[in-house]
């Protein structure tokens, strides 16, 4: 085992450029990523624990955590359903305009978030194309949690579609056939056979959509309006504190945002790793 690892390592080092690529990568990562991030740690270390606690439990900020988490949860659940539907029809069915629909799925990643933000705010405002139709029904989307969830959902649409799509493509046709010949109905077969197979990809995609929604800023602020305690998201709170030159406050909030998203990302990676191991490890 060890001998094998050693020869493998020696073989690897046959290729040139180890020193150069290590040097360039480490320099870049240190200067662009790590140095700025340590300045956050530096700023926070000037605070005592009680000061830090006071800053991160400010009632207006606590309200923003609620607004952000709730909006992101709604957006992620919407995308779980919508993404599953889109992945399904794009893999399983043929219909005119399919290539166009497929390409359109990536629009939220390609479109700058500020553009998405002002567009959604305009569409759903009380005199916008959609807002105008909803107002007589007593539904307002601008400046409410619905608008926040909507904007978050828009920017994270590609995550579920693009994680589920390749897994569904790889699903062997025999699985369908076996389920159907056993006499199961469509919905029963889907729930008992297909869904368990797609589950890991679906959870991963939904998790990524959730993390992205938590951090979304540009798309949300225009439609949210930023009413304190009601439609203020946490990234906006960092921005507000910076405009008041409250660097300590902004850093404290940023540390919460950063820690939450890193923890979630790590959890998703571990979950995905375990799934891949189960998939490949079981059969060697």
């Amino acid at each position, binding site marked *: 085992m060890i001998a094998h690892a050693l020869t493998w390592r020696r073989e690897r080092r046959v290729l040139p450029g180890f020193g150069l690529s290590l040097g360039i990568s480490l320099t870049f990562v240190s200067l662009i990523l790590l140095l700025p991030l340590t300045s956050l740690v530096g700023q926070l270390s000037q605070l005592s624990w009680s000061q830090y606690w006071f800053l991160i439990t400010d009632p207006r900020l606590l309200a923003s955590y609620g607004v952000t988490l709730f909006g992101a949860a709604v957006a992620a659940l919407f995308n779980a359903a919508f993404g599953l*539907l889109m992945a399904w029809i794009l893999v399983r069915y043929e219909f005119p305009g399919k290539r166009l629909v497929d390409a359109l799925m990536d629009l939220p990643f*390609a479109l700058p978030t500020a553009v998405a933000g002002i567009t959604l705010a305009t569409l759903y405002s009380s005199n916008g194309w959609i807002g105008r139709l909803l107002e007589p029904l007593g539904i307002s989307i601008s400046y409410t949690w619905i608008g926040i969830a909507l904007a978050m959902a828009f920017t994270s649409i590609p995550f579920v579609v693009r994680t589920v799509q390749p897994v569904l493509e790889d699903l062997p046709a025999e699985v*369908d056939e076996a389920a159907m010949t056993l006499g199961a109905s469509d919905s029963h077969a889907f729930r008992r056979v297909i869904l368990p197979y797609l589950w890991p990809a679906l959870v991963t995609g939904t998790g990524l959509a959730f993390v992205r929604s938590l951090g979304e*800023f540009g798309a949300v602020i225009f439609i949210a309006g930023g009413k304190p305690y009601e439609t203020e998201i946490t990234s906006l709170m960092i921005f507000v504190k*910076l405009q008041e030159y409250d660097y300590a406050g902004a850093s404290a909030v940023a540390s919460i945002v950063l820690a939450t998203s890193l923890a979630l990302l790590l959890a998703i990676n571990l979950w995905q790793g375990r799934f891949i191991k189960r998939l490949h490890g079981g059969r060697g």
Partner: protein
Amino acid sequence: MIRIGDAPRVRRLLIGAALVLTALFLLLPLVAIFAQALMSGIDVYWQNLSDDYTLAAIGLTLLVAVITVPVNLVFGVFLAWLVTRFDFPGRRLLQTLIDIPFAVSPVVAGLVYLLLYGRNGWLGGWLDAHDIQIMFAWPGIVLVTLFVTCPFVARELIPLMQAQGSREEEAAVTLGASGWTIFRRVTLPNIRHALLYGVILTNARAVGEFGAVSVVAGAIRGETNTLPLQVEQLYQDYNTVGAFTSASLLALLALLTLAAKAALEWRAARRETAT
């Protein structure tokens, strides 16, 4: 062969629902951008486009892209080469580190740069004494954009280069080829589509970044406004048509990005069926 959901009724229902939702959530916003920009006619549209502040914003946005895309291209290639062709302690850690910009809110990215280079920051005093302006000037915008876009190229290359393995390159070494020759003649032809796609993604994000840039730019009209910031400022001034005019340029770039991606995927698929 029988497959789940193949009954015509089910199929029609699902396709119908999917198309309605796609039209509502994706197509309608896209149409709205251009409709709003052209609301007052094509003459006003051109007028808005040739506005001095808009032209300055376009210029600054191009400058940011012209610097960040090549830098991140070089970094991405070296990082991908490093983590897929060599084994060394800390390899996994390095791969995790470059995912940070994907996870953090762009506002946090802007903040950490402000803490480092701002007036009260670690380097702020030294920069002030030497009269170097980074925050609220274009170098700051370039730096945060580098931060936000650094994972894209590497993320496209790493899975592909891992899957391809290094056998071909090792053969080239045995034949006595130099490092640069190996990269140019062996590696590059294998990765050029993924590399191009990484560059397209980097460019789209570099041009469109808003949250991080708005923290470090200071929104000085004609000086530190990139196009997305210009969009925001015009919108806050209730100049809707002007805002959507600038937005339409960014939307056009987004459409080009999607078209380029579709073309790359189509070519890859065709090559796969050909072999």
